[in-house]
C-alpha cells in the first residue's frame, strides 16, 4: 500500500517535471526539471525492486550526463528563450495526435506483446542478476551497443576537432 502510494507520488512528480521542462523559459530551469524527472524515475525503479538500476540511473544520468548539460548552458551563458506565438497546426493537430498515438502504442503493447503491467517489487534487482543478463544472456546486443557508442564518440571527436587550419604566422611578441 505504501509502495503504491509512493509509486504514484513519484510518478506524478516525474510527469509534472517533464511538463515543466517544456514550460520553463530559462534553459537552466528546464535542465533542473529534467534532473528531477530522472531522479524520480530512479525512485520508480527502486520501488519496482531494481535497486542497481536505480543507483546507476542517478549516477549516470542525473549525476554525469545532466552535469554536462548544465555545464554547457553555463558555458554558453544561454539566456531566456524568446516566446513566439507558436504554430497553430501544432496546437490543433499535434497535441491530440500525440495523445492518440501514445494511447495506441500503449494499448498495442499491453494487448499484443504478452507483457502485463509489472507489479511493485518484482523486477530483477541484484547486481549479479543484471550482470548475468548483460554479459551472458544478452552478450551480443550489449557488445553491439558498445560498438555503437564507440562510433558516436569518434564522431563527436571528429566534429569537435573541426578542420585543420594552418596556424597563421604570428609576429614575434616584443
Amino acid at each position: 500500500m505504501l509502495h503504491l502510494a509512493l509509486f504514484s507520488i513519484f510518478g506524478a512528480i516525474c510527469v509534472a517535471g517533464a511538463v515543466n521542462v517544456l514550460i520553463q523559459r530559462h534553459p537552466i530551469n528546464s535542465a533542473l526539471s529534467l534532473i528531477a524527472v530522472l531522479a524520480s524515475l530512479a525512485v520508480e525503479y527502486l520501488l519496482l525492486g531494481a535497486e542497481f538500476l536505480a543507483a546507476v540511473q542517478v549516477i549516470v544520468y542525473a549525476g554525469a550526463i545532466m552535469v554536462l548539460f548544465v555545464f554547457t548552458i553555463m558555458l554558453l551563458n544561454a539566456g531566456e528563450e524568446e516566446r513566439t506565438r507558436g504554430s497553430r497546426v501544432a496546437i490543433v493537430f499535434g497535441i491530440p495526435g500525440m495523445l492518440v498515438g501514445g494511447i495506441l502504442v500503449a494499448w498495442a503493447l499491453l494487448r499484443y506483446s504478452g507483457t502485463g503491467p509489472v507489479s511493485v517489487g518484482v523486477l530483477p534487482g541484484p547486481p549479479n542478476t543484471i550482470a548475468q543478463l548483460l554479459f551472458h544472456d544478452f552478450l551480443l546486443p550489449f557488445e553491439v551497443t558498445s560498438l555503437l557508442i564507440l562510433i558516436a564518440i569518434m564522431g563527436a571527436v571528429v566534429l569537435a576537432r573541426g578542420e585543420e587550419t594552418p596556424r597563421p604566422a604570428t609576429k614575434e611578441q616584443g
Partner: protein
Amino acid sequence: MSISTFVIVSVIKIVIALAVLLTSVAYSVWLERKVLGHIQNRWGPSYVGPFGLLQPLADGLKFIFKEDLTPPHVHKALYIAAPMLSVICAVSSIAVIPIGNWVDVAGLHIPLEITDVNIGLLVILGITSMGVYGVALAGWSSNNKYSLLGGLRASAQMVSYEISLGLSLIGVLIVSGSFSLRQIVDAQGGRFWGFVPRWNVFHGQEVAFFIYLMSAYAETNRVPFDLPEAETELVAGYHTEYSAMKFAMFFMAEYANMITVGCLATLLFLGGWHGPIVGPPLARVILPVFWFGLKVFGFMILYIWVRGTLPRFRYDQLMAFGWKFLFPLAVANLVVTALVVAVRA
C-alpha cells in the same frame, strides 16, 4: 524487531550519527587551522578556550549572527538552494557507512550504521555525484564572472575525476565480490602469513588506493586541486558572493565530504574497523569503532599535511593529469585485477 522499536532505534542512530558528523566537521576545521599553523611555524587558534578548542563554537556563533547579504543581481531561488544542496548531499551519505560491528543493547542486535543496503557503495557514489550541482549552481546563480569560472572549473574537475575514482573502486569490488560496505569490510578480516592484515590495500589494490587518493583530493576540491576557489586568480571562486551561514554551509559540505571520502578509503582499502582486538567484552565493542575512527583521523591529517605542503596545479595540468595519467592507470589496474581474479578462480 517490531516496527516501533525499529523506528526508535533508527531515529536514535540518525541523531547520534548526525551529531558526531557535524562535531567532527567543526573540529576538523580547528584541526586544520592548528596543524597548518604549526606547519607554517605559528600557533593557529589559541585564544578561545584551552588550545583554542572552543574556536569552532565561536566561529559558528559568528556565522549565525553575521548579516546574511543577498546581492541584488543573483538568481535568487538557485542562489539560496545551492548551499543547501551541497550540505544535504555531503551529509546524507553518512547513512550507509558502517563504523563498527554489531552491538547488543537491551536484547537487541544492532548494527553500527544507520542502514545496510546491498548497493551501499553505489548509494554513496550517487549522492556525491549529485553534490556537483551545489557548486555548479552556486557559481552560475551568483551572476559574477569569478563565481561562474569557479563553478565551471569545479564541475569539469569533479566529472573528470569521478571516472578514475569509480574505476579505482571497481578493482576493490572485484576482489570483494559485493557492493555492500559491510561485506566488503568483512572480506578484509584476517591476516596474510600471520602478520600482514588482509586489507585490500595489501591485497593487490595498492595502485587503486593511489588513484583513489588522488581522485579524492580532486573530488573534494582540496589542495593541490583547489582550482575552483583559487584565491589568487578567482577571488574565492564559486562562493565569492556568499556570506554568513550560506558561506559556512559550503565549508561544512567540504569538510563533511572530506570525512566521507576518508570513511570510504578506510572501508574499502584499509580494512574498516579491523585491528587488534583484546580485552573485556566492552573493549571488544569499543575497539573496532576506535580503529575506524583512528584510520579516518589519519586520513584527515594526511589531507591537512598535503595542504600545508603543496602548491596548486595549473588548470591544463590538472586535466592532463586526470585524463592522460590517472584514467589509463585506473583502466590498467582494472584489467590486471580482473585477469588475476579470473586466473585464480
